[in-house]
């Protein structure tokens, strides 16, 4: 999810028809610059070398969970349809990447599921195996990340990650921020109070992220 207000212009994006490392590349209609959907980087055109602003306001969840949490939600409707058959069903089941592509970074398998985010301009990947119920990690500057995956979440959804300078700890059945005691609510996916902020990331496959971000720090 990216902001469209950029350097005094409001950009309209569309698919460029091209891919980079199997990830979609967009172009904006105002400058024809090329943008990696995976990283937000302009890889060509007028804005080459700059980066879009990612908005930490979105998450991927099953419809039934979303509508329970947000009963007043609006739903995108295209030609009267709000849903479509899944054209990528085989892709999700297969062990190989899009068009047979494989990870070159062997720290994980091609289709292993990760939660990808950036912190301090560095790419990170959390192996989502074992994250269900919550897990903490230390980042390069000594600060802390907490990752959570909803119980029974399907592949490619349901993960979230949070940052704190102070750290996170388990207190009984709950996760809290060290020092402030702010409690994590798995229902709302938020910490109540404290100095925690949500990291802006997404669920993806290892090959897709690692091919685009070869210097990724892998948290396991």
């Amino acid at each position, binding site marked *: *999810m*990216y*902001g*469209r*207000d950029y350097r005094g212009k*409001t*950009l*309209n*994006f*569309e*698919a*460029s*028809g*091209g*891919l*980079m*490392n199997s990830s*979609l*590349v*967009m*172009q904006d209609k105002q400058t024809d610059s*090329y943008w990696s*959907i995976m990283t937000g980087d302009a*890889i*060509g*055109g007028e804005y*080459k070398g700059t980066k879009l602003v990612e*908005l930490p*306001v*979105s*998450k*991927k*969840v*099953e*419809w*039934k969970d*979303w*509508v329970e949490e*947000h*009963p*007043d*939600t*609006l*739903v*995108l*409707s*295209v030609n009267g*349809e*709000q*849903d*479509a*058959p*899944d*054209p*990528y069903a085989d892709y999700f089941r297969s062990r190989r990447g899009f068009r047979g592509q494989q990870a070159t970074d062997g720290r994980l398998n091609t289709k292993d599921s990760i939660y990808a985010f950036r912190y301090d301009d560095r790419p990170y990947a959390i192996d989502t195996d074992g994250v269900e119920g919550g897990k903490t990690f230390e980042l390069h500057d000594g600060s802390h990340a907490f990752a959570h995956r909803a119980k029974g979440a*399907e592949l*490619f*959804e349901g993960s979230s990650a949070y940052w704190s300078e102070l750290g996170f700890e388990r207190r009984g059945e709950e996760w809290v921020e060290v020092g402030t005691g702010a409690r994590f609510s798995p229902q709302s996916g938020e910490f109540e109070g404290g100095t925690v902020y949500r990291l802006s990331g*997404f669920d993806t496959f290892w090959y897709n992220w690692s091919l685009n971000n070869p210097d990724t720090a892998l948290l396991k």
Partner: protein
Amino acid sequence: MSRFKKIPIPVLVLGLAAAVTATSAMTQQRDLPESFEQIIPRGRIAAIDDPQFVPAAEASIADDSVVLGVVIDGQARAYSIRLLNTHEVVNDAIGETNFAAVW
């Protein structure tokens, strides 16, 4: 009868030369990384510039269908990932916030 046959050969050659020059100039101008691959022409996948929405009660969507859920200024919107697959980008706005729904 094809239109092609009516074009005199010298014009065709000039046209081809111009096309080749235009293509290489375009490639240079794009200055794209080697790993970029043009799979289909631009514009073949139509982005959504004027998205339409219905309330949850009127939506026909499978319980386990994955949506991209967004909350801005207290307003919630859901985009079926399967619908996004066929359009790739929704250029949307809530209040003063212009954003691109992509995944």
